[in-house]
């Protein structure tokens, strides 16, 4: 018997390796325990015959209140139980990275309890302490009382979790396995804030099942964000911004490269340029490696915030390029200054174009993330957004912007500054998606979808390589199928 099996579950985006279980397993193994880590999202993809469209369609199950189990989902759960039986462990750790995995976590832990497995169940992750994602549960599954509870409380009350670890579990998992549990006053929930950086254990990951153009490994250099954008829950999830030194990150990257023979790395950070000084230190070390190893260069990518040029340190773009920085994911969000201001982005459209020009001059590629329907977005703002998309086209054609995400329509997520806005009315049946602002009442879900379709048309007309449009489509379709009449009633009352 080993000490722990740790895994993540759908909802899964296959373009990224879920590193959480591998990191936790790495911590345990470095402390002389035996553990294994899995990302079961890839297992489901395999059961879908590696058909990406079917995979996203099947995954709608985890976001919908449908009561009938899909045969593929049932096979999927059985496969997980089989793997757990093949790897008996004292503890089973399940990642609840977002609210979108509430249903899969709920159902797999039920099956674990019903099986012969005697392992204790540890739940952890950023989605655990959130309110139950009620859009995924029918009224028969959860009581009206449970539907108002935090997911962690539901799981504990139902006996589906022995330990709940809110937030990151680097510290807590070790203490639990060591039998050195420190409980907080509520008796059950543990918190963990130690920023450990072990060598992640990817031995049981199926790298070939990820949809990556180029195989890469995740790495974490910081947690949290230096911004507090109103649509984003990172600040609430991760607390204040914390970072590792550039030297420390570079050391881990070189170690992983040696162990797995993979040259490309993806920073899981909410942003890689939160601390420019440490970023430049990191880049200098990797640039030096690349200079000495011209046929075996390292490349890396990550998320990026756009800052006005006056805030940029001197040689930043130069060292990013030399260290192999490429394909940076930039949260552009909107092409309207008015909306960016309302979002509290602390940047503007000019700053984005200035940065794109710097990227172009230094040969740094990027992907731009956008979305429509922010609660402040008027139709005129939306037109500005469309015009900005057109103005970006020269950078798309030159390849500086390798792809763009047209995005979903705006979500009102728990833990974001936006939901504290008293002028925003959220529906009870689908509070994330069906909402309206008193100050902008024509921005309804229907209007938001219309804006999203127009952006889609722009992408088609100008041949913009778009990212993950199928996922957006399925989410809209699911929402309408589940709540069509209620949506009409909600907006009729709001007018």
């Amino acid at each position, binding site marked *: 018997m080993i000490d722990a099996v740790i895994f993540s579950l759908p909802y899964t985006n296959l373009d990224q390796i879920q590193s959480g279980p591998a990191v936790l397993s790495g911590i345990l193994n470095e402390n002389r325990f035996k553990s294994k880590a899995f990302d079961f999202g890839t297992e489901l993809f395999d059961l879908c015959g590696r058909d990406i469209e079917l995979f996203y369609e099947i995954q709608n199950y985890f976001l919908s209140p449908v009561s009938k189990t899909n045969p593929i989902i049932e096979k999927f759960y059985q496969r997980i139980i089989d793997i757990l039986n093949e790897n008996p462990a004292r503890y089973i750790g399940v990642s609840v990275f977002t609210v979108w995995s509430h249903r899969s976590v709920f159902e797999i832990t039920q099956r674990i309890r019903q099986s012969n497995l005697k392992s204790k169940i540890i739940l952890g992750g950023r989605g655990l302490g959130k309110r139950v994602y009620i859009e995924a549960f029918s009224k028969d599954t959860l009581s009206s009382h449970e539907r108002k509870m935090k997911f962690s409380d539901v799981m504990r009350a139902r006996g589906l979790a022995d330990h709940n670890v809110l937030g990151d579990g680097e510290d807590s998992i070790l203490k639990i396995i060591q039998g050195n549990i420190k409980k907080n006053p509520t008796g059950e929930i543990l918190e963990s804030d130690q920023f450990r950086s072990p060598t992640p254990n990817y031995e049981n990951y199926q790298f070939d099942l990820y*949809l990556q153009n180029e195989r890469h490994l995740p790495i974490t250099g910081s947690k949290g964000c230096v911004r507090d954008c109103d649509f984003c829950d990172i600040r609430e999830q991760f607390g204040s911004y914390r970072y590792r030194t550039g030297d420390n990150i570079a050391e881990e990257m070189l170690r992983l490269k040696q162990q797995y023979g993979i040259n490309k790395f993806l920073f899981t950070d909410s942003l890689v340029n939160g601390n420019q000084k440490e970023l430049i230190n990191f880049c200098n070390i990797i640039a030096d490696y690349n200079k000495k190893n011209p046929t075996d260069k390292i490349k890396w990518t990550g998320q990026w915030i756009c800052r006005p040029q006056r805030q940029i340190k001197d040689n930043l773009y130069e060292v990013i390029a030399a260290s192999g920085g490429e394909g940076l994911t930039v949260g552009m969000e909107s092409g309207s200054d008015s909306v960016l201001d309302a979002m509290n982005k602390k940047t503007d459209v000019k700053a984005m174009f200035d940065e794109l020009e710097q990227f172009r001059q230094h040969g740094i590629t990027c992907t731009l993330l956008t979305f429509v329907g922010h609660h402040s977005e008027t139709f005129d703002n939306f037109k500005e957004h469309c015009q900005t998309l057109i103005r970006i086209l020269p950078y798309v*054609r030159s*390849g500086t912007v390798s792809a763009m995400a047209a995005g979903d329509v705006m979500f009102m997520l728990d833990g974001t500054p936006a939901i504290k806005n008293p002028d925003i009315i959220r529906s009870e049946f689908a509070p994330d998606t069906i909402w309206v602002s008193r100050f902008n009442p024509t921005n*309804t879900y229907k209007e938001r979808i219309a804006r999203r*379709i127009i952006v*889609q048309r722009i992408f*088609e*007309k100008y041949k913009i390589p*778009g990212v993950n449009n199928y996922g957006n489509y399925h989410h809209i*379709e699911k929402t309408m199928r589940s709540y069509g009449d209620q949506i009409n009633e909600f907006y009729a009352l709001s007018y």
Partner: protein
Amino acid sequence: MIKSMNSMPSAIDSINNIDNFLDSLTERQIATIKVGLAATISKPVEFIIKFNGQVISQQTLSASLEVLNTFTVDCNKENTLELTLEGKGDTHTIVNDQGEIVEDSFVMLSKLEIDSYDIFADDEFINNNSTYTPVQTFYKGFWHNSTFSLTIKTPFIDWYNQQTTRNTRVVSDQEIQGLDTAKMNNLMGILDKMER
């Protein structure tokens, strides 16, 4: 017809006239053109830039130099940008006994940008939409008295993006330009069922 319940302009209304809406984003009858030249000069030559037959720049190049010409022009539906090298004679090119050129005057094109689009890097677009006389193949330089003539149609943004193949390739299942017709129709059907 997708109906909107309010009188304000909206995306819901625009979607019924999507072509008009998209056209309104690119209405622009002027173009900003940048022509960069890198001239190697032994004896003076003339370099002329014309747009729709009108001379917009005529330079006597008497010394080696690099120059960037930027100009904004009014456009018709179809336009012609002409770059011409003139005045090169028999004495401009001097060849030694070994047949090596030891002195010459020629002008290389170092930049060609229209409304921020890097046309210079788009060989396929240049080949499909230009002529070079009297020599047939344009190597982005002028070694003879010759004219490079590029056709430009408006709205340039629409026309160029239809013509070009740069970064339009779909590289994976998750990177697509649009939803297929069935999915798009489904979304439109969803909109139709919604009242507001």
